[in-house]
């Protein structure tokens, strides 16, 4: 009796192992996902988040550590979307194939880049660009200033101070001037009369 058990023990063990393996296969419906955010100088990861939008509609969040590393311990098998939210930076939107194309493997492509280039796994995400939330103050430009109402007013003021006096011709003076010229041309010497006629 005992010997039968002893003989069947390896068989039993093997059966158990197979069952365990099958169970493991079943449980492999989740996989871990790791990655790292590359952050340029001057940007902070203090409020950064990495979101994994599962195809089931659920949204998982991970918080990058100071070195940019993030991980999701249990991601169900499927094709998901990973996005990184870092203040002032735009990261690629990643199409993450978790164990559907190749069992037990994770593959990533940048979904929003032309041609959908493959990304390395474990993920290393580099930002596309910076994003400025505010308009930059334009440096002072004289021409732009002159076009504003203030510029026009200031221009008019300058005009009235420096140019206008030169343009000022009193009709009466003009007539006198013309009369003087007339007299000079005719050779007359009535210049004194002009002096006397000051009012």
């Amino acid at each position, binding site marked *: 009796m005992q010997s039968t058990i002893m003989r069947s023990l390896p068989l039993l063990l093997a059966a158990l192992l197979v069952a365990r393996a099958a169970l493991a296969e079943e*449980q492999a419906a*989740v996989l871990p996902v790791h990655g790292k955010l590359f952050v340029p100088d001057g940007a*902070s*990861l*203090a*409020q950064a988040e990495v*979101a994994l*939008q599962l*195809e*089931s*509609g*659920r*949204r*998982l*969040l991970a*918080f*990058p*550590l*100071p070195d940019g590393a993030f*991980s999701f*311990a*249990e991601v*169900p098998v*499927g094709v998901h*979307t990973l*996005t990184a939210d870092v*203040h*002032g930076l*735009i990261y690629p*939107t990643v*199409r993450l194939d978790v164990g*559907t*194309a190749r069992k037990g493997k994770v593959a990533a492509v940048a*979904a*929003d880049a032309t041609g*959908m280039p493959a990304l390395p796994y474990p993920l290393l995400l580099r930002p596309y660009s910076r*994003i*400025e*939330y*505010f*308009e930059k103050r*334009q440096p*002072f430009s004289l021409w*732009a*200033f002159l*076009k504003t109402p*203030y510029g026009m007013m*200031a221009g*008019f*003021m*300058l005009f*009235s*101070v*420096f140019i*206008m*006096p030169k343009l000022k011709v009193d009709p009466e*003076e003009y007539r006198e001037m013309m009369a003087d010229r007339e007299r000079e041309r005719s050779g007359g010497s009535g210049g004194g009369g*002009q*002096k006397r006629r*000051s009012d």
Partner: protein
Amino acid sequence: MPARCPAAITLALLLLAAWASPGQAIYADQAGQHDWLQQHVGRVSLAAFAAKPRARLFVASRAGAVAALSLKDGSLLWRRVLGEGDAATALQAAGARVLTLSGGGAQLTAWDAATGAAVWAANLAGSSDLAGPDAAALAVVADGKRSLAVAVAAGSAKGFDAVTGELLWTASLPSTKSAAAVKAAPAAAGGAWVASLQPGASRLAVDLVSPTGELVSSIVLGAGAQLSSTQLLLTEAAVAALSADGTQLCSAQLEQGGGSGSLGCQALASLLPPGTATEGAHLVAGTCSQHAALRVAGGAAALALGSGSGAAVTAFVPGAAASGCFRGAAGGQQVAFATPSAAGLETRVLSAADGTAVEAPVSVAGLAPQRVSGKLVGVAELFAAPLNMGGSQAVSQLAVFDDDSLALVRGGAQAWLRHEELASIRDLLFTDLPAPTPENEAQWLASQPSLRQSLAAQLVALKVQASRVGSLPLASPEELRQLERHKAVTSDKLRPTRDPDGFRKQLVVLTAGGKVLALHNGDSRLLWSLDFGPGAGLRKLALWRVPHDVQHDIEVVALAASPDSVTATVMNAHTGKILQTLTAPASQAAGAADGAPDVLPLSQPVHDGTADQHVFVVAPAGTDGAAAVLPDTPAARAAFVAARPGFAFWRVDEVAGAVRGYGFTESGAVEERWSAVLAPPAPAGSSATQQRILALAAHTPGEAVGSPARVLGSGELKFKYLNPNTLLVAVGEPRGARSGHSGGDDSAAAGPRLTVTLLDAVSGRVLFSQTHEDATGPVHAVLSENTAVYHFWGSEAHRWQVASVELFDASPTTLRVSDLAFSETNTTTSSWDVPPIEAGAQTFLVRHAVRGLAATRSARGNTAKQVMLLTTTGQVYLVDRRLLDPRRPIVAPGQKPTPQQAAEGLPPYQPELPLQGPMFATLDRQVARLSGAAVEAAVLESTMLLAAHGLDLFYTRLTPSRSFDMVPDDFPYALLVLILGGLTVATVVLKFITRRTAVKAKWL
């Protein structure tokens, strides 16, 4: 030379004016001028006080926020928001780190106590290994100079260096495997106690783990009764648990050494004073060695654990809430109690050992939140710790009220109060502020700084402007702060009255807990609040009466619907006084399906002499039920009768996958007019994925339309199809409907389809329909004028997409010039007209995942329209209508658009919508868990007011076409005056000069 003088002034002015660039773009320094963000955490469930390195308060909330608050003023120092549906289940402060357990107890995260950055994280177990969030525990244990974080989950204990996150050891604790509840606490002798309870068991396993990770001892403690898995408490030297039925308290002292022992169990009824209501008993976690606190419906008690046969009650305060037991400054073990009372929250600190008063009972005046019924709002949780602040030692008590508000009490006075109920806004309404009256104007003036202060501030402002030009630090930081303070106090946006431009308004909000609050849009200050409680079932806010004169106040209504009636509570919007409560019966026909009645506003208010009265029609669920009118006055009934023939509404039948249109019969009964089965249920056994109605969108009533026509580049006129009864229905597969069998044999089958139909809600006529291949939900949509915009997931492109549909009335034009000149332009199309419809549609790729869409609306509809994407990252992104225009011309790269295309002013087609930083209405801020937005047009055409809510509340002014109808806020009035003055001086001087020159010329 006298002429030099004005020239010099001019030059100075030139320099001064350098900053005045045209337009009104938002610069970094303008942020905060007309916008504010109120950040909240929501209902606090866990709190930890830290004395070192700085006195701080760390909290975790049910909504999933982990935050640090200033003890001084309650301001939010930092906050992290966990994923939706997640919340921290344990919170411990350990020096420079704050540790939390989240993700159902599986995720241990250490946050930087100063900045909130995640410093290290560890995954403790697979989610399937844990029975629930109670099955994981966290304790911070001192190990020499180092702080050790001991995390217990799924059969093992792990020791981490709390600061660096280095895993120091792992100890196997088989007793905690598949446990229903696990607790960990530092042991008095060093190391950590771990108590665990198997599901449904009446025995506790208690293990002692040394600071180096060895299992020192294991004890099994038997109790006579089955123990509750949620009410387990572990202290440095004792353990306590409530029985599963909540009637007994079992406890024992913990001693080193193995073997088995027993818990002494006592009935709560015999422990507590006779007559105390013992329902809802729960143990309050603390940091004492042998004492604890217990709360029951009738009050709270301090307990001494494991003395003799079990526990002993050392103090009992009826009607109070108790904090966890904590060590006082002098080392004694204390429990804080807080009792709500009409005179203010009554707080006291008692010694847990003998019940003597450590801090005598004090009534905190002013801290007595009340429901409108007069019932006091209870204290849900109380946290307390002795903290040395500003040189004085006192117990700080943090009270979480049942209405979610959060108050810190210190030394018998309220230090601060946070309105955390604003974290759960359900509805938001803008209303006008009171009209200016001599009284409130005088009040405002009295609060203003004196003339001398104002002059001093103007001087500093000049310095600041000059330093901006010359990049010289002319103004000191103290002066800058002074200027900021002056600006904050004197800013016109803070006046308590309305302004002619319609910029100053109040926000009336309704929270999930049934509270109605009014906030000033200038600085988010609370004007009034009314607490109806969650039992009132309030669902919606609406305008009720808008008076024509300025003497009367605006009235708002909060609506609550139950299957057989609708209750309307009318409030004065300016004082928060409840004016009347009206009930309208929703009399259903016999045998009608149960369901809440619809409350439908009539499109036009009734003018009843002194005010515009808004009228609501209550349509009972099902058909044949009789409609009721709110308010039930002759004028309102007459208005309903007049509107009845054209009055239509719709309901969605989820089961049948249909949209049904309803109206009212002559007798006022609900009748079905049409139905459209858009997503028929899949036949049983069919492998096809079920199609569902994913989204519905209708027009916001009262939208102003600037022009009923559009001029094309060719000069041709196109008339918009402006039917306010248009309804958008999106039918398709919800996201993830196929995830179960992805990669299987259905890859050969057609991809998911999304069908979007535009219906007329009155007649049920289909106006337009289009199908997107390889597209799924979630779908969000918005309708504005003749345009429908919706957002969906493109599964093939693996990108979010936005589609826009524009409808035009293609019937031959009958418009004559005389019509334009002499008749009023009609900007709506009747549902009964059946013109041929011309539609344009286009799809774009977009970066943002959204929680909703909205559209801007201005007073007259002339300002450029923008579509607002409410993103999942909590931002509001504005997309100009022109970018979504289906008529965007396709221009080959390298070519110029034709003159006709250019004349239309549309940007050439690009498959992706551009992402521009300045187009974020939320600027560089984020509204956590953004869920909705409300837009209100100001009186000035250029401006509209936006409030976005979620966990946070954000308010800003929007000017999609820039502020074309007003002087910019930073308009340099001083410069204008200087220039005018300069001109005057120049004129005088010039006159003088000319005279002198003339005289000189004549003397020559």
